[in-house]
């Protein structure tokens, strides 16, 4: 019995001893060394991760993706921790898509942080890190980020613009709608176990993806327009060219292209080249419109009742305005031309005669009513407003210049909007390119009537003559469709002399179809065609015809006959 008592006593003592040790250890870990351990645990087990927001997708009107963000990884390094930079650069350079020399240079810097590659595709970034781990290359880290890709490459490049490596829009719609597209990054608290496996994840701030923009653009029409402009570029070697296709009844832009093209996934390294290539000339190109502007003078005079389409004018070969003599494009004897013929043959003398009939103030009023001298309001950045003289700034010979589209500056989008007003029955509408945000249609600004529907119809009828036999674009046709439009060949100022150049012109064509009930409008502007012809009827009008030949049946617009 005494033996058992002793054994119980020993057992009790042992347990008590163990308990005392445990209590002491607890005291040491929890109280004496607790703060340091807690700090270590936090640094080793708890991480606050940045959750990058997915930038909104940009699609065309049919849902074709034009710009999308995908997860990516930025690889950085602490050169002080990279033990063998030479070996590291040799193995990682191919994966990073960089030269070994450049990588070695980066890894040899006396710095605690260098970027090795920014916004690599996630798969490649993972491959780099896996390779580094495999080769036991220390000092590398990967940061989750997003990269912007443009699956169609050159398609609508100047319209879409680009987003920088930090995710901010730098030009085009990426810039204009950056607030909608960017979203907001989130933060996530991750507790990991000893093996690095997350055992608790909580969102500190939830990330919010950017809005999805649905454009009015149609990728197929856009592609066709760009192909046509490429062909114009290869045939006429112009300085640049631009084209716009829109719905005259709504102002929805179906295509907006600029040449030379730009591949958004392979941007030029030179900043100056990049800036020039990114310029959306459809909204930023100020040019003298030439004969395409004659419809302003004619429409105003028709609306005022000063003339009718059949009013006849005695048109000589040239006309004297103050100290200037303005000629028609071709020599001809004095002849009687109707208003319709003046437009169809693009008579300078005739247009000036009609302009003078209106007078300076009335003509100027019509210029402004058609939207010139002010921005069109299209939802794209970088729009120029052109330059229109006020009557007080007119010289004696201004009315010899302005009615024929010289002496004032307009933009392609302004011209497109003005012709859309003629096409849709006289209502000037703001062109737009964003159809919906997150599926919600954008509110369209109301248009305002500038000419009556009957006058618009008369002007449309007269513009059919331009593409009819005897017109300045008579060679252009689309089988089955009645086209209407106006050619323009404008002289450019030679910056060296300050005089109108005899070699530099802007060839343009503004037109729509079907002529009786226009549903599609197209504007083509070619700046300084170099070889072949220089005229709107031979440079821009054929491009208009090719675009319409594709777009009209594509959109299911029935032929006129």
């Amino acid at each position, binding site marked *: 019995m005494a033996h058992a008592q002793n054994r119980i006593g020993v057992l009790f003592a042992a347990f008590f001893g163990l308990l005392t040790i445990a209590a002491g250890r607890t005291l040491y870990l929890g109280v004496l060394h607790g703060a340091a351990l807690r700090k270590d645990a936090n640094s080793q087990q708890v991480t606050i991760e940045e959750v990058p927001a*997915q930038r909104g*997708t940009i699609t065309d009107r049919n849902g*074709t993706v*034009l710009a*999308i963000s995908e*997860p990516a990884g930025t690889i950085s390094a602490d050169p002080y921790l990279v033990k063998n930079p030479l070996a590291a650069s040799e193995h990682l350079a191919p994966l990073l898509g960089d030269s070994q020399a450049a990588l070695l240079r980066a890894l040899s810097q006396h710095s605690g942080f260098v970027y090795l590659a920014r916004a690599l*595709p996630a798969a490649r970034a993972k491959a780099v890190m896996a390779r580094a781990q495999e080769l036991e290359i220390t000092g590398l880290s990967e940061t989750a980020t997003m990269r912007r890709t443009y699956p169609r490459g050159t398609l609508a490049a100047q319209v879409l613009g680009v987003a920088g490596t930090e995710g901010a829009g730098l030009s085009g719609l990426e810039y204009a709608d950056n607030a909608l597209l960017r979203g907001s990054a989130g933060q996530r608290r991750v507790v990991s*176990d000893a093996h690095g496996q*997350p*055992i608790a*994840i909580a969102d500190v701030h939830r990330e919010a993806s950017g809005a999805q923009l649905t454009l009015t653009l149609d990728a*197929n029409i856009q592609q066709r327009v760009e*192909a046509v402009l490429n*062909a114009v570029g290869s045939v*006429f070697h112009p300085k640049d060219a631009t084209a716009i296709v829109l719905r005259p*009844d709504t102002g929805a832009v179906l295509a907006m292209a600029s040449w030379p093209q730009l591949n958004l996934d392979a941007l030029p390294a030179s900043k100056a080249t990049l800036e020039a290539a990114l310029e959306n000339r459809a909204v930023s190109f100020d040019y003298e419109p*030439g004969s395409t502007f004659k419809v302003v003078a004619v429409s105003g005079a028709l609306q005022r009742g000063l003339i009718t389409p059949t009013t006849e004018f005695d048109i000589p070969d040239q006309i004297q305005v103050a*100290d*200037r003599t*303005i*000629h028609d*494009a*071709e020599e001809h004897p004095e002849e009687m031309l109707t208003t319709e013929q003046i437009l169809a*043959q*693009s008579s*300078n003398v005739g247009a000036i005669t009609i302009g003078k009939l209106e007078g300076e103030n009335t003509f100027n009023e019509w210029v402004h009513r058609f939207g010139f001298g002010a921005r069109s309001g299209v939802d794209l950045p970088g729009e120029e407003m052109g330059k229109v003289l006020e009557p007080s700034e*007119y*010289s004696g*010979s*201004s009315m010899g*210049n302005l009615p*024929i*589209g*010289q*002496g004032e500056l307009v933009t392609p989008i302004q011209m497109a909007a003005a012709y859309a007003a003629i096409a849709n029955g006289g209502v000037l509408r703001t062109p737009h390119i964003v159809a919906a945000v997150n599926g919600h249609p954008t509110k369209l600004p109301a248009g305002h009537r500038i000419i009556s529907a009957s006058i618009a119809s008369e002007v449309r009828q007269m513009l059919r003559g331009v593409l009819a036999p005897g*017109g*300045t*674009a008579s*060679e252009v046709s689309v*089988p089955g469709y009645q086209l209407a439009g106006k050619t323009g060949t*404008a*002289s450019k*100022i030679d910056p060296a002399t300050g*005089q*109108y150049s*005899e070699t530099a012109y802007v060839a343009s064509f503004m037109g729509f179809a079907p002529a009786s009930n226009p*549903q599609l409008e197209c504007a083509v502007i070619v700046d300084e065609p170099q070889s072949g*012809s220089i005229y*709107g*009827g*031979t440079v821009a009008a*054929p491009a208009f015809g*090719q675009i319409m030949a*594709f777009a009209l*049946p*594509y*959109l*299911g617009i*029935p*032929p006129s006959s």
Partner: protein
Amino acid sequence: MTPPPVAAPAGRNGDSRRRRVSPDFGPPRRSARSAGPRTAPRPASRPASRPRRLSGPATSRQREAALAGAGAGTLGLRLPLPGYLRLPDRLIDRLIGGRTWIAVIAFALIGIVAMQLWVVKLGVGIGRALEHTQLLQRENAVLAGEDSALSSAERIERLALAKGMVFASPGALHFDKTRGSLDVRLAAGALAKPAQSPTTPATTTTTTPPAAGSETEPAGEATLAAGTQPANTTRATAGSTSETQSAPTTTPEVAASTGVATSPAGSTETAAPTAVAPGGSSEAAAPTAVAPAGSSEAASPASDAGGGTPTPGG
């Protein structure tokens, strides 16, 4: 016979041991003689010998006895439950006093640990799910990009041309007017019939909006037949088209974008604009549309935008 000289009451166990009282402490004692008889009779109800209280949990019988003695109505220890809801006392005793509690508590402790482990596993699962979500998002974005690139009209056009297809000329397309419910009935009938053989001759059936001038959206409204037929097997031209309700349904958008055609080979549109010959065009006939050299206005600076006299052509 003398009575026992003990005045103190009986002890706790009822023994008659004598309690020694110190005369120096306590209140002054009453004189035993004046207080009455020195001997007090034992209470009659007190049992002569009560069993000794044993250590350990009370047995059910003891508890029953205690409860019965306490009087259920006076203490209010029992809930005023109807009899059929009242658990049997024996069961309560077993629940409270049995060793089952050890198992219950052990089970609860194991459960708590298991639950904590489950929470940890859940955290791991959430982490993996998030990684998987990111992976799927990544793949989705990549696939969306690939889809967009592969659906490029340029690429499809190239492939179609390689297979011998050509573009339909715009004049080769014909549009048919819709006939309301008749078309619906015919379409329903066509759906019920077995599919036609792929050697169906190329035909064209297209529809237009009922009224000219209305908004014409292509998808679902207009169909271009024979759009999938290679050019060498298709003879449909502007004059050879026929209207057939069961014609293959390829929208003009698809037909146009895919480059399929009904027009004869050789009518392929190329993107290159042809510099149209100037013949017949007044402006083209006069390539120099500037003021004649040496004219007075050419030398005089322009007051508006530039010098010289512009003579724009059409």
